């Protein structure tokens, strides 16, 4: 009997996993949330299990215990968590393991360790990976902070250890301003978290986000499949990714890749994973964190390497050996992924909900489309705003950029606004084209006026005029647009006699 794979996810990634499942001869089973009973991914599955969401905030995909119970009830062999939801929840992975279900991903311990930043960083140091220079734990007072900053080199960042969301965070440019900033950061952190502990870290003014894809099996074999650059972000949300990166030299690439493999081996990693680095202007790089799931942007790597990552993820989970060796991994050409989010780039990326009345994707041999929606789909506020991804290839970076722009021209969506015009703007921006762009591009360079275009504006003026003129000229016209019907005698009599 075929093995049965339950996909604990939705939308485009569910469809992506179903594709691999079918290739490997597995039966693909999906969960139907009552939040989107007509979702596109359901059409691709072999079996659909109806699952009621616990609450609006907790859809079935976040309900670990119920998913495992459903899996047991339906004789499921493997669970693929996709990305997001429970994909990096060690308790879920542990629960699967305990219930005898094969979790497609690394072991619960690996997920847990990589999920706790301090532990992950410690393990990285042990493996010899560079970390962003900083104070060893919290600094007690201004003097300690100054000492530490002197060692690191200005500018530095004061960060609340309990922190998050930018509170208790200060950039210190020079020693003279340390005292003032230390105090205000301390007060802010105390007020916000009840803990004023601060630590000092090197502040990177123009950082880039580079990540390495790795694959490891349960027999200790680990390979890396090159890097992706995901510097184009807004509030830590990636919007456009490319592979490879034009920002690193072959030498740095080799070094970063080697270190990634070394680190993964040192912790006994298996399944697909990603090692994220932060790259400074001068070319130095530091380890940030490791993701233990398949990433949204995995298709760019697949496109340039020709390796099917999800296939391998499942095969590794099934206990197969990684027969793909490092020597066999070759990257050719360039690939760019544009995320199609239903967000309004003209209005601070506010999320859009409603109907997709009509959607049209570009088609070509160098284009790959991953979509979770079709004509008539509803975008609800309950789930992520990413509805599709457009991945385009070219033999060089410039060709990839040109091809992507051409592809985006053929994309259209009636009903909602998306980030596609934003991607178009990025691809034409000199900072991006010259590969100088950093994670601060959106805050530094982007302004909604850049989305506009003179030709579009003129066509818009014409369309608006045509729409307006249709009504105006009809009212202005002297010709009768209606007729009167004669009154039925029954009605007429009653009206007269009342």
């Amino acid at each position, binding site marked *: 009997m075929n093995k049965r794979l339950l996909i604990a996810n939705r939308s485009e990634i569910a469809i992506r996993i179903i594709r691999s499942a079918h290739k490997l001869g597995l039966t693909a089973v999906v969960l139907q949330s009552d939040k989107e009973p007509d979702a596109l991914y359901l059409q691709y599955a072999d079996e659909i299990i109806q699952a009621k969401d616990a609450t609006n905030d907790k859809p079935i995909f976040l309900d670990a215990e119920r998913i495992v119970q459903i899996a047991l009830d339906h004789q499921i062999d493997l669970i693929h968590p996709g990305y997001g939801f429970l994909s990096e929840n060690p308790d879920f992975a542990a629960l699967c393991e305990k219930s005898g279900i094969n979790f497609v991903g690394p072991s619960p311990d690996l997920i847990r360790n990589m999920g706790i930043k301090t532990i992950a960083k410690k393990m990285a140091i042990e493996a010899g990976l560079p970390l962003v220079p900083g104070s060893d734990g919290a600094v007690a007072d201004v003097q300690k902070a100054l000492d530490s900053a002197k060692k690191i080199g200005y500018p530095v960042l004061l960060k609340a250890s309990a922190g998050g969301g930018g509170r208790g965070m200060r950039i210190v440019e020079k020693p003279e301003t340390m005292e003032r900033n230390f105090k205000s950061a301390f007060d802010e952190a105390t007020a916000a978290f009840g803990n004023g502990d601060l630590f000092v870290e090197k502040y990177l003014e123009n950082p880039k986000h580079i990540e390495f894809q790795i694959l490891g099996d349960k027999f200790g074999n680990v390979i890396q499949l090159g890097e992706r650059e995901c510097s184009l972000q807004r509030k830590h949300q990636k919007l456009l990714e490319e592979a490879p990166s034009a920002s690193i030299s072959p030498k740095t690439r080799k070094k970063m890749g080697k270190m990634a493999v070394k680190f993964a081996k040192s912790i006994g990693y298996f399944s697909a994973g990603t090692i994220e680095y932060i790259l400074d202007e001068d070319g130095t790089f530091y380890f940030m964190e490791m993701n233990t799931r398949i990433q949204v942007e995995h298709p760019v790597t697949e496109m340039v390497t020709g390796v099917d990552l999800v296939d391998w993820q499942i095969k590794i989970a099934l206990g197969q050996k990684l027969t793909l060796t490092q020597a066999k991994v070759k990257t050719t050409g360039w690939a760019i992924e544009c995320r199609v989010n239903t967000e309004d780039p*003209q209005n601070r990326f506010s999320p859009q909900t409603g109907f997709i*009345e*009509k959607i049209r994707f570009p088609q070509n041999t160098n284009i790959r489309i991953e979509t979770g929606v079709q004509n008539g789909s509803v975008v609800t506020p309950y789930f992520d705003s990413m509805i599709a991804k457009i991945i385009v290839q070219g033999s060089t970076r410039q060709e990839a950029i040109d091809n992507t722009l051409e592809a985006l*021209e*053929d*994309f*259209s*969506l*009636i*009903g909602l*606004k*998306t980030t*596609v*015009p934003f991607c*178009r703007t990025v691809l034409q921006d000199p900072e991006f084209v010259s590969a100088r762009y950093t994670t601060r591009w959106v805050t530094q360079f982007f302004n909604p006026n850049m*989305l*506009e*275009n003179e*030709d*579009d*504006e*003129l*066509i*818009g*003026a*014409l*369309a*608006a*005029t*045509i*729409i*307006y*003129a249709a009504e*105006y*000229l009809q009212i*202005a*016209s002297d010709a009768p647009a209606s007729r009167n019907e004669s009154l039925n005698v029954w009605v007429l009599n009653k009206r007269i006699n009342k």
Partner: protein
Amino acid sequence: MGTSYIYKRDASRLFIAMRENGKRFKIYLPKESMPVIDNMEQDINFIEQSDFQYLFEWKGKRYNCELVSRDQNKTTVKVNGVEYKFSLESLFSYVRHGMIDKDGKQTDENNIKSPMPGKIVDIFLAEGDLVNVGEPILSLEAMKMQNEITAPCNGVIGKIHVSTGQSVMKDDLLVEVTSIDV
């Protein structure tokens, strides 16, 4: 009765589309040929219209337009995923708006003088009429030829200094026109 008035309901198919940032498009929609935008005929093909969208082709490219919202004469359209908001007016209502605007640019006086000596044969417009640029105002016979004197700008006819049958010398003041910048 039988009194006829010169002013007509404006069904002239000439419209002004104005963006919030003040950018203006003068759009003429002839019944059976290409639209004229800012006095230039544009080779824009209207490919199809469905419930939701208008599809144009221009300079070899396709343009997807969608009506986003309408509030009286304010129309928002989405072109290739980006919204543009326009307020629309017929030419005459636009001209009148210009006059409400106290600090509008309309105060230019344009005095039409006789280009040559001759005789006024006919006056087509009356004081207070709105005129479009190039529209004939009066007919002047000189050297056995009838010459049409046309409006130098869009605007309102002010005082008419001549009457039919009157002979005029070169540079005699004929008509005052208050221009409204369109």
